[in-house]
C-alpha cells in the first residue's frame, strides 16, 4: 500500500460517502455525519528478548452519527457494503429516544486554514524487512548494553492511512499520514532480583527522525529499568516530590486538564467550573494548546467534527484562560460555535479536550533538583488511581528514587497520595529543560512540596 493507492482510495471514498449522505437526505435523514478512519500497518513484535510475531493489518472504520430532532444515534462499522443500512440503523437509534435537546445539532461547515499532510512518501520504500532490522538492532542494544534487562514486549510499526469526515452540513475534510513508531516494555532481572516494569516509545514522520528518537528512547528505557532493579523499601515522610516530564504529563496534569472539559463543566463534575480569569495554580505554571505546529506529531487542521483547530492559551501564570468545547458543549455554554476541541475518532462520539498541550519551561536548572537538602522523592511513574471530580490521586511509585544529600537511592513499595488541584499550588519550581512527550507536547520537570509519602519501613 503506497501513497498513490491510499490517495485513490480516499478519493473514491469521498465520492461514496457524499453519495450516501445525499441518499440519506433524499430519504428524510437530514443530519448525518460519517467519520472514516483508514489504516494499513505492518508490525514486528518482540517478546522475551526475541522476535515474536510479524503482522500486517488493514482496516477502515466508520463512525456514523445521525441527529434527528435533538436525539442522536451512533453506529460504528467496518463493513463498507452495508454503510447505507448503518445510516438507517443510526437513524432508528435516534428516533427511538424521547429526550430531545435542541442544542444537539451537527456543526455548520467552517473553513480549515491549516492544511496538514504528514505522509512522507519515502516511507513507501519501507516494509517488514526494515522493521525486522530495527528489531534486530534493538535486541543488539539490549545484548551489548543492558544484558540484565528482559524485554517483555516490544513493537515496531509502519503505519499509513487517512482520516476523512463528511457531513450533510457540508463538512468535508481529510488528512493523510504515515509514521514509523516503536515501543518497548520490560524490566531488569538479576538472579532472584526483579525490578519494576518500565517502558518507552518513539515515533517519527521520516526514517531519520524515527531512528534518532528511537535510539534515545531505548536507552532511556534501559537506564530506567536498571535504576529500578536494585530498589529498596524506605520510610515514609512528608515532603517534596520531583516529577519528570512523563509523570507530569500522564498523571499530575491529566486530572487538571480533564476538569476543563466542557462536558464535566456542564454536569457539575469539575472543580474548575466558573474559574475563567481566576488564579487556580502557581504563577510559575503556563499551559497552551497548539495543534497548528506542523513540526509536532499529532498536529491537525481539524477536530473530530471537522471544525478548524487553533492555538489557545489554557493557563497563563496560573490564571485560567479557556475550557475545551465541541459543538454541543459550546451551545450548552451559550457560545455560538465550538473552539475546535472535539476529540475522538471513528470509534467514538465527539468528546472535548486539547490536542497538543505545551507547558512553558521555567527558569530552574533540573540538575539542581537532584542536589536539594533534605529528602525529595523522584517519581518516575505512578501506578495508581485518580478521581476526576475530586482531583484525588494515589498510587505506587515506580522506578522512583529517594534523593537525599546528593545521593540517588532507588526505592520500591512507596505510595504517594495527593490532590491534583491542590498540587497546582504546590509547585515550587519548574525546569528550563524538558522533553517532547510523544513527539508532540513539551513538558518540563516540576518540583512540588507538601506531599504525604508512605513507605513500608517504620520511621
Amino acid at each position, binding site marked *: 500500500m503506497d501513497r498513490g493507492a491510499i490517495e485513490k482510495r480516499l478519493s473514491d471514498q469521498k465520492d461514496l460517502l457524499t453519495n450516501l449522505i445525499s441518499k440519506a437526505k433524499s430519504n428524510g435523514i437530514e443530519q448525518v455525519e460519517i467519520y472514516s478512519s483508514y489504516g494499513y500497518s505492518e508490525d514486528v513484535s518482540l517478546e522475551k528478548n526475541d522476535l515474536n510475531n510479524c503482522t500486517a493489518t488493514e482496516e477502515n472504520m466508520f463512525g456514523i452519527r445521525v441527529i434527528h430532532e435533538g436525539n442522536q444515534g451512533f453506529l460504528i462499522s467496518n*463493513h463498507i457494503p452495508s454503510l447505507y443500512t448503518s445510516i438507517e440503523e443510526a437513524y432508528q437509534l435516534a428516533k427511538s429516544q424521547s429526550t430531545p435537546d435542541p442544542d444537539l445539532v451537527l456543526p455548520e461547515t467552517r473553513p480549515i486554514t491549516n492544511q496538514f499532510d504528514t505522509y512522507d512518501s519515502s516511507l513507501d520504500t519501507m516494509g517488514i524487512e526494515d522493521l525486522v532490522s530495527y528489531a534486530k538492532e534493538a535486541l543488539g542494544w539490549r545484548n551489548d548494553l543492558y544484558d540484565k534487562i528482559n524485554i517483555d514486549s516490544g513493537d515496531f510499526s509502519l503505519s499509513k492511512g487517512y482520516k476523512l469526515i463528511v457531513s450533510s452540513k457540508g463538512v468535508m475534510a481529510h488528512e493523510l499520514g504515515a509514521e514509523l513508531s516503536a515501543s518497548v516494555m520490560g524490566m531488569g532481572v538479576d538472579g532472584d532480583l526483579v525490578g519494576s*516494569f518500565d517502558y518507552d516509545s518513539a515515533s517519527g514522520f521520516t526514517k531519520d527522525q524515527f531512528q534518532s528518537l528511537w535510539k534515545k528512547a531505548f536507552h532511556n528505557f534501559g537506564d530506567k529499568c536498571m535504576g529500578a532493579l536494585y530498589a529498596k523499601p524506605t520510610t515514609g515522610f512528608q515532603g517534596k516530590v520531583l516529577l519528570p516530564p512523563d509523570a507530569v504529563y500522564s498523571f499530575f496534569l491529566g486530572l487538571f486538564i480533564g476538569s476543563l472539559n466542557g462536558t464535566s463543566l456542564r454536569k457539575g463534575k469539575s472543580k474548575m467550573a466558573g474559574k475563567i480569569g481566576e488564579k487556580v495554580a502557581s504563577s510559575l505554571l503556563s499551559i497552551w494548546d497548539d495543534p497548528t505546529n506542523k513540526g509536532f506529531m499529532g498536529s491537525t487542521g481539524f477536530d473530530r467534527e471537522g471544525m478548524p483547530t487553533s492555538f489557545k492559551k489554557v493557563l497563563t501564570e496560573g490564571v485560567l484562560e479557556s475550557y475545551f468545547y465541541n459543538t454541543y458543549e459550546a451551545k450548552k455554554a451559550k457560545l455560538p460555535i465550538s473552539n475546535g476541541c472535539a476529540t475522538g475518532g471513528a470509534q467514538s462520539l465527539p468528546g472535548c479536550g486539547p490536542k497538543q498541550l505545551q507547558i512553558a519551561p521555567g527558569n530552574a536548572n533540573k540538575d539542581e533538583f537532584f542536589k536539594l537538602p533534605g529528602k525529595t522523592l523522584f517519581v518516575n511513574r505512578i501506578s495508581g488511581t485518580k478521581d476526576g471530580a475530586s482531583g484525588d490521586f494515589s498510587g505506587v511509585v515506580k522506578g522512583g528514587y529517594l534523593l537525599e544529600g546528593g545521593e540517588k537511592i532507588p526505592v520500591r513499595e512507596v505510595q504517594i*497520595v495527593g490532590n491534583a488541584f491542590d498540587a497546582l499550588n504546590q509547585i515550587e519550581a519548574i525546569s528550563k529543560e524538558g522533553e517532547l512527550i510523544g513527539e508532540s507536547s513539551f513538558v518540563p520537570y516540576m518540583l512540588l512540596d507538601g506531599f504525604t509519602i508512605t513507605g513500608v519501613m517504620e520511621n
Partner: protein
Amino acid sequence: MRDLLKECLSEESGFVELRYHHKESRSFFAERGRVESTALRKRTGVGVRVLESGTWGFASTSEITKASIQNAMQIAKKAARLSSALRKDKIPNLPKANFAVGDFIGKGIEDFRSRSVEEKLKMVLDIQNEATRHSNKLQSVGCGYSEIYEEKAIVTTDGANSFFSLVRPEFRVSAVAKDDGKLESGSHSIGVTGGWDCLFRSQSPSQISEEACKTAVDLLSSELPLGGLSTVILSPSIVGLLVHEAIGHTVEADFVLSGSVAQGKIGHRVGSDLVTLCDSGASEFYEGAGGTIPVDDEGVIPTNTVIIKNGILSSYLHNRETAERFGVAPTGSARAWEYGDVPLIRMRNTFLLPGDSSLEEMIANTKDGYYLDGAKNGQADATGEFMFAVQKAYRIQNGKITNLLKGVTVSGLAFDVLQNVDMVSKEFKWDLGSGHCGKGQPAKVDAGGPYVRTKVLLGGK
C-alpha cells in the same frame, strides 16, 4: 462459517489458524434527565495466524470471502518467512490440545434479542431520574447499560473446528456528590456472561444505583485513613482485584518467561495453607462470571487451572506455544479482543476458594484494621508488587466496624500478601465482571472469591 474457513484450509499443509469474529456492542447512557448517547458498534473479520519457519505470521481481513482470507494467509506466511532469520528461539511445533469441535451457543442471547432498544433506553433513563431524588447533594448521576454480543469460529489445520456465541451485558451507575465545594464520586457496576435475569440476579438496577449514590454522598464526610502496613479484610470484589492483579498476571506464562516473580516457583510455597487459587474458563460455583469462554482463541477447551493449591504454586496459565515450552498441556488461556488481534495469554475467571470462617467472625476477630470494599482499578508489576484502588475503607476497632474513610490505593508484594492470609470466609461471590483487563488488548474477565483477611500497605495521610 466453519465450512468457509475449512474450505480455505483444505489445501494447507503447515499450521494455519483461522479465526472469524463478529462482534456487536450496544450501549445506552443517560445523565441529567436525558439519553446522552446510544451507540451500536459492529466489527467483523477474520484473523489469520500461521507458524512457518519456526515463527509466527499474522494478517487479518474484514472481507469475509475465500479469496480475501487466502490472500491474508499469503501475507501472514510472507511475514513469518521474512522474520524467521531474526527469531533465535524457534517454535518447533505446537502440542496437541483438547480441541473444541462443534457449536457452542451461549445462554441469554435470545433474551437480549427479544428486548427492544426502547426498553433498554427506558431503564437507564428511569434509573437515572429516580437516582437524583436520593439526595440534593447529588450533582450528577450517570446510568449506562451495554452489551457485547459476539460469535467466533476457530478452525486450524491440526484439529480445532468450533463455533461459539455469547452475550455479555453490563450495567453501571456513577454519581458525583457536592458539598461545600468538595466533590466526591461513587460508582457501582455489574457484568456477567448470560441473560438479563443473570445480570440482575443479586441486585436490581435501583439497588445498584442506590449504592453508587450513597457512596458518593457518604464520601463527602470522609477522610483519608492513616497510611502504612495494615490488617485488612477484603470484600470479594477486592479479593478479585487482588488475585487478578497481584497473582494472575505474574503466572501468565509469557510473563513468566520474561522473568516475572513467579518464574521458577512451581512447587514452592507462595501463600498460606488457606490459599487455593484457580482460573477457569467456566463459571464455577454459579453461572454468569464475566470472563466465561467455552473455547479459547486457539480453539482449545479451557480448563479449570489450579494455580496455587493450599499455598503451593502449582501451575501457570498457558497458550499452546508456552505449553510446549513447559512440557504441559495448554490451559485454554489464549484470548484475542478483536479479529485483528493476535491471541495473548489472558486470565478468564480468577478466584480464591472459600474457607471456613464467616465475615462476622472475621470482623469480630480484628482488633485494629480496615474493611475494604468497592473495587476500582489495579495494576501489577514484574516484581509481584501490585496496586489496586478501593472506593471505601471502613475502620475496624476492637472487633467492630466504625467510621467510613476515603478509599485509596492499596499495595503490596503478591506472595507476601498471600502468605499473610489468616482468615477466609465461607461466602463466595463473582464481583469483577464489569470493565476490562488491559494487557496490550482489553479482555473481559471476572474474579472474586470469599472475604479474606491479610496485611497490605495502605496509602493515606
